[in-house]
Each structure stands twice: as structure tokens, then as C-alpha cells.
């Protein structure tokens, strides 16, 4: 993997995004992160933008600044995401809107703007986040799973439209990992979910990083439009 890659990670302040940022910084990459709040990640090769990925003007301004400062982006990791567990009958519409805005619209906006930069070099990797909730049709996660299913579908069509520009688009679908995203999910629900996996354990940050590095690898230029489910989940 190239050392001097420029990697943009959304939702980089905490959780998987923070781990990814620290990991790629340790490998000597230039990391650009963004989140709604300021980050305390202090590294000379890290730049943080404070923004909401659903805000089109703010997203365009970030990419405009990246264009001026770096002139390119090699990898976009659309990690920013939110979840809400609720019975379908009890789900307020504004919860649906919030989940889709961040998980789908945010992925769409950042991918669109990143692709404009990537096409110049005829090279780019876009890595989106799906979830095992899509494959497992989890009760209580109708809206979250639907938003991630939309991300998968978006990724498939994007892979076709961007293939000629040298940009690959793939998804990683993690199992539950010990982050804020699942802290409100009851323990028995997590255990039930893990029981559906072929490999019955909680996911680790390293599991996700492994897949992302695989998609980022120069040798993966022939892989696009795919979703890789962790934990031996079969869709």
C-alpha cells in the first residue's frame, strides 16, 4: 500500500473512525477527518474539519479546501453513521429522516465530491459502511438496515458509473463492535445477533481495518461494487 496516500475519513472523532485515523497516521498517511464536533487527535499529518456530512454547502467547502491544500484524495472512507433501535410501529418519522440523512445522504454527498477530485488522477477508492443488519433483517433495526441497504445499492451503481474513471466503490459490513453506536442496544440483542454469525464473537476494530486495507490496496483495482460481510455472515 502506498505510504503517501491521502485518506479522508468521515466520523473520525470517535469509534471506528478514530481507530482508522490513528492506524493510518501510524502508517505515515495523510489523514483528513471530519465530524460534527472538534477532534482532540493531535498529529501533524491529521487535518480535521468540523461539519455535518448532511450539510451540502459545508461538505462542498471542505472538498474545495482539500482541493486547494492537497489537490487530490486517494481514499474516502464513509464511516459517519448513526443508529436507532426501535419497533417499526413506534418509529417517529424524524428518526427515519435523521438516520437516512447521515447514513445515506452523507455517504452520497461525500462520495460525489470526492469522485470529482479522484477522477483527475483516474484513481480512487471509496469505501462505504454497510452492516450485518442488512443481511440478518434484524427486528428493531428496520430503518437502520434500510439505510445501510440503500448505501449498498448506491455503491453498486456508483461502481458502474465510476469504474471508467478508475474509482472503485466497495462496502464493508461489520458485525457489532464495542462502540457508542451499539451502547444503547440491549445485551441479549447483541448476543442474539452474534449467534447468527458463523464466527461467534464481537467484531474488533482490526477486523474492519483489515477489510478496508484490502479495498485500498493497489492490487485491489479490479474489485468494485462488492460488500464484504464480517463474522461469516452470508447474505
Amino acid at each position, binding site marked *: 500500500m502506498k505510504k503517501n496516500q491521502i485518506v479522508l475519513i468521515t466520523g473520525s472523532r470517535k469509534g471506528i473512525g478514530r481507530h482508522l485515523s490513528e492506524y493510518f497516521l501510524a502508517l505515515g498517511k495523510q489523514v483528513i477527518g471530519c465530524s460534527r464536533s472538534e477532534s482532540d487527535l493531535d498529529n501533524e499529518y491529521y487535518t480535521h474539519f468540523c461539519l455535518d456530512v448532511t450539510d451540502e*454547502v459545508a461538505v*462542498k*467547502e471542505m472538498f*474545495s479546501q482539500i*482541493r486547494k491544500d492537497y489537490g487530490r484524495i486517494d481514499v474516502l472512507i464513509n464511516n459517519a453513521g448513526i443508529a436507532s433501535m426501535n419497533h417499526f410501529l413506534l418509529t417517529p418519522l424524524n428518526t427515519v429522516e435523521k438516520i437516512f440523512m447521515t447514513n445515506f445522504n452523507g455517504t452520497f454527498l461525500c462520495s460525489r465530491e470526492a469522485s*470529482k477530485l479522484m*477522477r483527475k488522477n483516474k484513481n480512487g477508492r471509496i469505501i462505504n459502511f454497510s452492516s450485518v443488519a442488512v443481511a440478518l433483517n434484524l427486528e428493531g433495526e428496520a430503518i437502520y438496515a434500510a439505510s445501510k441497504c440503500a448505501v449498498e445499492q448506491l455503491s453498486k451503481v456508483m461502481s458502474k458509473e465510476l469504474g*471508467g474513471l478508475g474509482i472503485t466503490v466497495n462496502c464493508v459490513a461489520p458485525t457489532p463492535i464495542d462502540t457508542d453506536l451499539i451502547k444503547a442496544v440491549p445485551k441479549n440483542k447483541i448476543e442474539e445477533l452474534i449467534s447468527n454469525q458463523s464466527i461467534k464473537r464481537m467484531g474488533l476494530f482490526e477486523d474492519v481495518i483489515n477489510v478496508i486495507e484490502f479495498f485500498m490496496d493497489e492490487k485491489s483495482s479490479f474489485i468494485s461494487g462488492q460488500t464484504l460481510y464480517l463474522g461469516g455472515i452470508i447474505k
Partner: protein
Amino acid sequence: MNKINREKISELVFNCIKNFQEEYEQVIDFSEGEQTRLFGGNGQLDSLGLVSLVVNIEEDIESDLGISVILADERAMSRRSSPFSRIGNLIDYIEELVSK
């Protein structure tokens, strides 16, 4: 914001299309000036060519005029006469967008 005149936009668009020829790997015939057809019936660009040109023009507008615009928005798509059919239509449309 100072009003940006049509002449400046026209210069930007023609320069952008001229530079785009290398990327598009095809020569674009400008002999009809602003009446030059870009996209649609007898247009010189295919759909991917149009997408790339539109993105290039958006970038040039931002870098040269300091204005961030989305050219392919709903207004553009719903017009009876497409802003992307001829160079002149495109210039008119950009003038309309940046003067708002």
C-alpha cells in the same frame, strides 16, 4: 457581490471546453461559436463526456470566480431547453446562476 458579466463567463466556458478536449480525447468543433451543440441531438459529447465537462466547469467557476455552484440541479434538468444542449445555453444558464 459584483455582477459577473457574460463575457467573462463565456471566456471561462470556451477555455474550459478547449482544455477538456485532451481529457476527452476528441476534438470539439467550435466553428458555430455559441451555437455549437454539446449534448443531445447532434451533440458532440456523450453522457460521460458531459458529466466530466460539467464538473470541470463547476471547478473553474469556483477557482476563477470564487463561486460554488451545482450546474446539474433540478432547475437545469426540468427546463424545456436544456442548458447543456449548446454552448450559448450553458453560458446563459451559468450567468443566471452566478448572478443570484
